[in-house]
C-alpha cells in the first residue's frame, strides 16, 4: 500500500467536484475515486434522430433502466430512482434548475418541530451560494421579492418561450411568479457558449451551456492537481482501533482487482443513496451497524420532494419543444407554511416544457397520450406544441421510515449489496400535494387551457411512486450526535476523519431543486475542512 494521500474523495459529482477543487487548491494531495467515467461529447444523443427514444432507454436517468456498467441496481418498488454515475454525477444530465432555499427552510424546527433546524442559517450560506454561482454561471433576473436579495447573475435570463401562456394565468390570479434562476447560460460565459435552445436538457448538454460539473468545477480541479480515478468503484471504508478511517478499498478499473488507498481524511460524496449504502456496507466489529451510524440515522430521513404535475394545452402554438426544459418560471406563492391550508410547509410551482414530438404524442409528463387510430393526427395537431407543464414541488417531511438500507436480494457487479429504498408520503405531504394540484389546475384554467391532465405519480394500486431525482437527508447534519450523522461542517460525529459532502447531509429539502444548495454547502464545508487539514499538517 502506498503512503497515505491527504484526502480521498468518493464520488466525482457536485460534492466531489467542489470538494476536490477546494482542497487541491489549498495545496492538499487529493485523489477522487469515481465509479463511472467522463461522458464524451459524441456519446450524447442530441445529434441523432433517435434522441427521444434514447432519453427513455439507454440514456435514461433511471439507473435501473439504463443499466450501464458503472450503474448499480436499486432495489425498490416505491419510486423510480434517478441518478447519473460518472464524472459530474447527476449534474451531467439534470435540468440545471437553480433556485435557492428560503430562510425558513433552515428553521423548520423552530417553526413547527416536525423537521430539524439546520445548525446554520440562510445568512450563513448566502455568500457560498454566490461563490458557487460565480463558477457555475447562472442566468436570471434580479428583483424577485419572494426570496432574499442576491448578487447579480452571471448572465441575463433565457427566453421564456412557451411559458408566456402561464404568465397570463399567473397575472390573472395575482400570484407570485418570476423567471427561474438556471444553471444554463443566457450569454457566453467563461469560455462556454450560450444556450441555443435545443430543448433536450434532460439528456445533458454537449455544448457546455448547461452547467455540468465537468464544464465548471472539474477543469479547475484538474488544473489544481486532483488525481481523478475513473471507473473505480469503492467497496468499503476501513477503520482502525482508534475509530479513525484508514483506507478505502476499490475495484481497480485496469485489472479488476481490489486495491486499497490510504489517506489522512476521507470524504464521501456518492449522493443520498450511494453514500448511506457505502457507510452501511462498511460495517465492522467497531461499527456493527454501519460506519458513522451510532445515531442509527444513516440511511433514514430520505427526502425526494413531493411531486405532481399538471399539464395544460391552449388554443395557440407555444413551440414547447424549443428552449430549456425546466423550469422557465417559478411561483413561490405557496412556499411558506400557512396552517389554514391544512398542512405545514409549502410547495412551489414550476413551468416546464414538453420535449419533442414523440414524447408529446406519447403523453408527455402527464400521460395524456394521443389516441391511436383515425383520430390520432387530429389530436396531435391540436396538442403538439400547444402545451406547458406545471410541476408541483413540495417540501416532504424527513421520516425515519423513508430510508436506504442494504438489499438482501440484489448485488452489483462487484458483489456489493444494492441499496434498498423504502419511501412513502406522510399524510401532511399528501394533503399538500392535493392542494398543490388544485392550484396548478386553477392556473391552467386561468391560462385558458382547453385540455388539462394531472399526474400524481400514483401507480395502479394508488401508491405514490414518484420519479426520485433529489436524493436528500440520509446522512443529515445537525448539532446533536443522537439525531444527526455529521456536524454542521459535514464531519462525522463518530469518525473524526470522515466527512460527507452531498445531498445526503441536508436536514430539510425545501420546496425547490437542491443542487445550488448542495453546491453552496459543500463549498462552505470544504473550505473549512481545507483550513483544518492545512493547520493540522
Amino acid at each position, binding site marked *: 500500500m502506498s503512503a497515505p494521500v491527504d484526502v480521498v474523495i468518493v464520488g466525482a459529482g457536485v460534492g466531489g467536484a467542489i470538494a476536490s477543487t477546494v482542497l487541491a487548491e489549498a495545496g492538499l494531495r487529493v485523489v477522487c475515486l469515481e465509479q463511472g467515467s467522463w461522458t464524451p461529447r459524441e456519446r450524447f444523443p442530441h445529434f441523432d434522430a433517435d434522441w427521444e427514444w434514447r432519453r427513455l432507454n439507454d440514456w435514461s436517468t433511471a439507473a435501473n433502466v439504463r443499466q450501464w456498467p458503472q450503474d448499480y441496481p436499486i432495489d425498490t418498488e416505491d419510486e423510480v430512482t434517478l441518478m447519473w454515475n460518472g464524472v459530474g454525477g447527476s449534474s451531467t444530465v439534470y435540468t440545471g434548475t437553480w433556485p435557492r432555499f428560503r430562510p425558513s427552510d433552515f428553521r423548520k424546527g423552530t417553526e413547527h418541530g416536525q423537521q430539524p433546524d439546520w445548525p446554520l442559517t440562510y445568512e450563513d450560506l448566502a455568500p457560498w451560494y454566490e461563490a458557487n454561482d460565480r463558477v457555475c454561471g447562472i442566468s436570471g433576473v434580479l428583483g424577485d421579492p419572494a426570496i432574499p436579495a442576491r448578487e447579480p447573475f452571471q448572465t441575463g435570463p433565457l427566453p421564456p418561450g412557451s411559458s408566456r401562456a402561464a404568465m397570463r394565468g399567473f*397575472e390573472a390570479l395575482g400570484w407570485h411568479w*418570476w423567471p427561474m434562476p438556471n444553471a444554463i447560460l443566457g450569454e457566453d460565459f467563461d469560455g462556454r457558449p450560450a444556450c441555443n435552445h435545443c430543448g433536450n436538457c434532460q439528456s445533458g448538454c454537449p455544448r457546455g451551456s448547461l452547467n455540468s460539473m465537468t464544464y465548471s468545477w472539474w477543469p479547475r480541479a484538474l488544473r489544481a492537481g486532483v488525481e481523478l480515478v475513473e471507473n473505480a468503484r469503492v467497496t468499503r471504508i476501513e477503520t482502525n482501533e482508534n475509530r479513525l478511517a484508514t483506507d478505502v478499498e476499490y475495484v481497480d478499473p485496469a485489472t479488476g482487482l481490489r486495491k486499497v488507498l490510504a489517506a489522512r481524511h476521507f470524504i464521501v460524496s456518492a449522493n443520498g443513496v450511494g453514500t448511506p449504502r457505502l457507510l452501511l456496507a462498511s460495517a465492522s466489529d467497531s461499527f456493527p451497524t454501519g460506519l458513522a451510524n451510532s445515531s442509527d440515522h444513516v440511511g433514514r430521513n430520505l427526502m425526494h420532494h413531493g411531486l405532481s404535475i399538471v399539464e395544460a394545452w391552449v388554443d395557440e402554438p407555444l413551440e414547447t419543444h424549443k428552449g430549456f426544459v425546466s423550469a422557465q418560471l417559478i411561483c413561490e406563492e405557496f412556499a411558506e407554511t400557512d396552517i389554514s391550508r391544512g398542512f405545514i410547509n409549502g410547495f412551489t410551482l414550476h413551468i416546464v416544457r414538453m420535449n*419533442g414530438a414523440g414524447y408529446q404524442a406519447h403523453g408527455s409528463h402527464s400521460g395524456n397520450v394521443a389516441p391511436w*387510430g383515425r383520430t390520432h393526427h387530429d389530436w396531435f395537431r391540436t396538442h403538439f406544441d400547444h402545451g406547458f407543464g406545471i410541476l408541483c414541488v413540495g417540501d416532504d417531511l424527513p421520516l425515519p421510515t423513508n430510508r436506504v438500507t442494504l438489499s438482501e436480494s440484489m448485488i452489483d457487479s462487484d458483489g456489493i449489496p444494492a441499496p434498498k429504498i423504502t419511501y412513502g408520503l406522510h399524510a401532511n405531504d399528501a394533503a399538500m400535494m392535493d392542494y398543490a394540484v388544485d392550484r396548478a389546475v386553477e392556473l391552467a384554467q386561468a391560462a385558458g387551457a382547453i385540455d388539462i391532465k394531472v399526474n400524481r405519480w400514483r401507480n395502479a394500486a394508488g401508491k405514490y411512486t414518484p420519479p426520485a431525482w433529489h436524493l436528500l437527508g440520509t446522512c443529515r447534519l445537525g448539532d446533536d450526535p443522537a439525531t444527526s450523522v455529521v456536524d454542521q461542517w459535514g464531519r462525522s460525529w463518530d469518525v473524526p476523519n470522515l466527512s460527507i459532502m452531498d445531498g445526503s447531509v441536508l436536514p430539510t429539502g425545501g420546496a425547490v431543486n437542491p443542487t445550488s444548495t448542495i453546491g453552496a454547502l459543500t463549498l462552505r464545508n470544504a473550505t473549512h475542512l481545507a483550513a483544518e487539514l492545512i493547520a493540522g499538517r
Partner: protein
Amino acid sequence: MNKLADLLIPGDAAFPAASATDAPDLALSRLYDRLPAEELWVLFDDEQAPRVKDLKQLESELPELFFELRFALYFSYYEQPEVIKALRKLGHDYHQAPQPLGYTLDPFDERPGFDLPSVARGSYKPTQEIERIDVSTLPWFTETTGE
C-alpha cells in the same frame, strides 16, 4: 407489423401512414430489445390481418404489452424524416435532432407585464421573524420528529 402500425397511426392529408415510413421496422427492433420474443408473438397472427377490434382487445386484455407496442411505435414514427417533413409543412420549426442547430427564440423582454410580472408580488419570512406555528389542528401530528 405494417398493418398493425397503420391501425395505430393511419395517414391523413398531412401525415404519412406509419407503414409509409421505416417506423414499423424500427419499432419492431425496439420491441425485441425490450421484450422476450415469446411475448411479442402475441401481436402477430399468421392466420389473419389485425383488425381494429383485435387491437382494442389487446389494449384491454394485455395493457402492458399494448403500452410497449404504442410506446415503440409512437417514438419510432415521430423521428422519421417523412414525419418531420410533414411537421414542417404544418409550420412547425422542428429538427430531426436537437443539435447542432438548436432553435431561435424571441429574446427575454424585461419590461413589466411582458416577461416579468406587471406588479412584483411575493414575500418570504426572514430568519429572525420565524415563529412557532400551532400544528395541533392537524390530525396527523401526535409527536415531533425533530427540533
